């Protein structure tokens, strides 16, 4: 068998995944912290204040990467859920369900920081604008997935039901993305373009890119840590977990 394929098959084994997650989660968090520290330093101390928004534009260095993560994590959750539903891979169920609280956390950051930025710039904490409203619906969807997963006692049935909700919820992602194009919106349009010229000056862009990379690393660390906790809960009665929980074997 192809060594990479073999490794993937072995990773599906709960004890192997536990060892993998225990080893790599701290690296995800560590690299995330390091990268975000560089980005935050640039955002707070290097980049000059905006000529119109003053220092309040520095909020966007945490708002924009979190908003992107809120969408990306939902897409990842739906992908894992689809794989779990089609191929019945238990690890993918665990990973899909581990995505939900992380995505919800990034959505809360997006909504809260957007609201805090909106107060001095728009003169209001909240507006039922298409972008803000769809992002709020995304938070409710995340909460729905989390709630459904915890409402059903059997873990596998719960993961399948919640996974189905995640797959259906993917429809919302393009609506959020294009809400500023399809409707008249108070929220500003696209500033940063992967293809084509961004309307943000290059000197202001680099901390944002560090933050974007940092939040990705953080997600990897958090996903592994949360998936490990769920994996242990599902396997609590097994010998390998008892061995791990023994006073000499604990690696919490």
């Amino acid at each position, binding site marked *: 068998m192809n060594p990479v394929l073999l490794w993937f098959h072995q990773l599906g084994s709960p004890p192997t995944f536990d060892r993998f997650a225990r080893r790599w989660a701290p690296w995800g*968090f560590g690299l995330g912290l390091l990268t975000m520290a560089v980005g*935050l330093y640039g955002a*707070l101390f290097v980049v000059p*204040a905006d000529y119109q*928004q*003053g*220092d*309040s534009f*520095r*909020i966007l260095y*945490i*708002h924009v990467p*979190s908003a992107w993560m809120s969408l990306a994590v939902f897409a990842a959750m739906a992908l894992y859920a689809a794989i779990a539903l089609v191929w019945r891979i238990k690890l993918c169920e665990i990973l899909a369900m581990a995505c939900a*609280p*992380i995505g919800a*956390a990034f959505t*809360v*950051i997006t909504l*809260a*920081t957007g609201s*805090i*930025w909106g*107060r*001095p710039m728009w003169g209001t904490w909240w507006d039922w604008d298409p972008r803000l409203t769809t992002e709020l619906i995304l938070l409710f969807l995340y909460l729905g997935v989390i709630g459904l997963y915890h409402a059903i006692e059997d873990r596998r049935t719960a993961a399948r039901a919640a996974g189905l909700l995640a797959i259906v919820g993917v429809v919302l992602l393009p609506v959020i993305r294009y809400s500023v194009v399809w409707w008249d919106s108070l929220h500003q349009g696209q500033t940063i373009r992967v293809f084509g010229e961004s309307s943000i000056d290059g000197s202001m862009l680099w901390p944002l890119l560090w933050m974007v990379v940092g939040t990705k690393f*953080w997600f990897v660390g*958090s996903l592994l*840590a*949360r998936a*490990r*906790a769920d994996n*242990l*809960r599902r396997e*609590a009665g097994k010998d390998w*977990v*008892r061995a*791990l*929980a*023994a*006073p000499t074997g*604990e690696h*919490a």
Partner: protein
Amino acid sequence: MSYIEYVVAAYAVFAAVLAWDFVAPRIRTAQLLRAVRMLASRRAAATTVTADESAELTR
């Protein structure tokens, strides 16, 4: 036009939520491993008591 209090509030929210995201799975894992350890020790104690009782009966 510094709006510094808004910047501080936004970064505080960011730090608090990420701190929760870091701590929450660790607490759950630690609680779970502790529960498994306690269950194992209770079972071990019960097995010892049962073994003592059977030894008493065979005397």
